[in-house]
């Protein structure tokens, strides 16, 4: 067995548990992932580069990354705010609201897609009011951002909440007794404590938004060069049986996602090695 236990454990079942886990992982994750690599490898470098950097592909990267970034930023700000009020304040229906925060996570993306489109299209509840002010949401990059914000909502809230909950009341009282006002206490004492979790949550929201498909394709309008997200581009290439081209783009996209995951893990490791009072 390549994997050996670091310390001898009393509890039985290790071999079986690990074995089954590995088998499943191989089947469901590793092998499939490697096929992308293999398929892309069937292209020459030039073809690869063409597929990956065509104007249409570039436009889709711009949209996907750009809209995801904006959505992540919005969620960063409002997610922190929501976590703050849920943990620190009491108001009617607080519990219900708290449970509802996970809705974007539990709701199927197709449902999210059609409902957001209906809401924000020119004759929807929200869309109609916005058209009066001259803002078009559906079928524009703005619509993509709205959908991605929805999708990413729970991430920042849920990563920040437990940290906020477990904060030592004492440090706030200490700061107040030393004369700090609310803002100073927040900025100098609380924010540094929240920062790792906040960044993690925002990065997760970003990563999630990048890969999102279902909720975006309805509201985006999917016009190439304008409102076509990368996952859709991949879909389209598959439609045209350009498997290799699709794989190439997918590869680039995957590399980006993996880098983000890595980033998150690095931050988390730093967060857990942060000096803690014993």
């Amino acid at each position: 067995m390549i994997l050996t236990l670091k310390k001898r454990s009393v509890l039985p079942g290790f071999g079986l548990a690990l074995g089954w886990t590995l088998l499943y992982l191989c089947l469901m994750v590793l092998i499939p992932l490697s096929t992308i690599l293999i398929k892309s490898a069937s292209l020459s470098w030039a073809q690869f580069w063409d597929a990956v950097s065509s104007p249409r592909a570039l436009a889709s990267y711009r949209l996907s990354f750009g809209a995801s970034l904006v959505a992540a930023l919005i969620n960063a700000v409002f997610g922190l705010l929501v976590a703050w009020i849920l943990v620190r304040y009491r108001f009617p229906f607080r519990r219900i609201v708290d449970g509802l925060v996970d809705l974007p996570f539990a709701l199927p993306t197709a449902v999210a897609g059609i409902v957001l489109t209906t809401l924000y299209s020119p004759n929807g509840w929200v869309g109609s009011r916005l058209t009066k002010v001259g803002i078009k949401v559906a079928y524009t990059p703005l619509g993509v951002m709205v959908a991605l914000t929805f999708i990413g909502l729970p991430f920042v809230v849920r990563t920040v909440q437990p940290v906020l909950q477990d904060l030592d009341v004492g440090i706030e009282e200490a700061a107040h007794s030393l004369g700090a006002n609310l803002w100073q206490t927040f900025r100098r004492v609380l924010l540094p404590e929240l920062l790792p979790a906040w960044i993690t949550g925002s990065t997760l929201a970003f990563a999630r938004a990048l890969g999102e498909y279902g909720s975006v394709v309805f509201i985006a309008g999917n016009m190439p060069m304008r409102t076509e997200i990368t996952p859709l581009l991949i879909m389209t290439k598959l439609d045209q049986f350009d498997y290799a081209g699709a794989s190439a783009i997918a590869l680039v996209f995957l590399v980006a996602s993996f880098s983000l995951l890595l980033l998150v893990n690095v931050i988390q490791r730093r967060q857990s090695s942060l000096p803690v009072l014993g």
Partner: protein
Amino acid sequence: MATTASPRILTAPRTKPRVRTDPALVRWALIAIGGVFLGLFLLLPLAAVFANAFAKGATAYMAALREPEAASAIRLTLLASAIAVCLNVVFGVAAAWAIARFDFTGKNLLITLIDVPFSVSPVISGMIFVLLFGAQGWFGSWLAARDLKIIFAVPELIPVMQALGGEEEEAAVTLGASGWKTFFRITLPNIKWGLLYGIILCNARAMGEFGAVSVVSGHIRGLTNTMPLYIEILYNDYQFVPAFAIASLLTLLAVVTLVAKSLVEWKTERQAAEHDSVTEEGL
């Protein structure tokens, strides 16, 4: 704890908020802003699903659900999800056991790998399946429905098992219980709530999966639709009421999932509190 790549049960709020003495103005201003944001992004969509589903009245709603195509979509979805959930439960418990109770080289790598499907775009996952299974028709779409759901059961279980500590199982082993016995009699009852939540969540995700399935079904002919695909077809056909009717079913499932989550949290807290108070009482 494993990475916080997906919201964990135990990371959700406790029952009592810590009441603060932030000035009332600040408090209510923040609550108001938060309220508007959440109202816009959460409540409105939720309400809209049902409003649109019943836009033509209850009869139209029921009729949409009784359509033969709707029925077969629902059937397929249920079947695929059931299979996905079963596989995932076994995998999930096995992985959670391995991760929470043992220390081994490569553990971190394993944890990262487990989180992968969560972060990969569903389209890419779907595409992988197309590449793998090419023109294998029904087999392909049947498989696709399962793939993405693989790992969702796992992350939910790991913190539960960690939180409960290994003492009980160790006690059982010292008393002579074999591996399986320990598992069934000690571990399982302890994690039952987390497990239940994992199952419900996994099921919800499975039934709602859209991206991966649409890639696969679109490119492997001879297919049946799952519910989310069917919704897309209806919507693109401008059949809004039927689309939202089916959507409302999935939305109800989502709400049930959320309620289940709250219940599980509550139970786990109570269990943990009892656990603590027992150990605190000491002599």
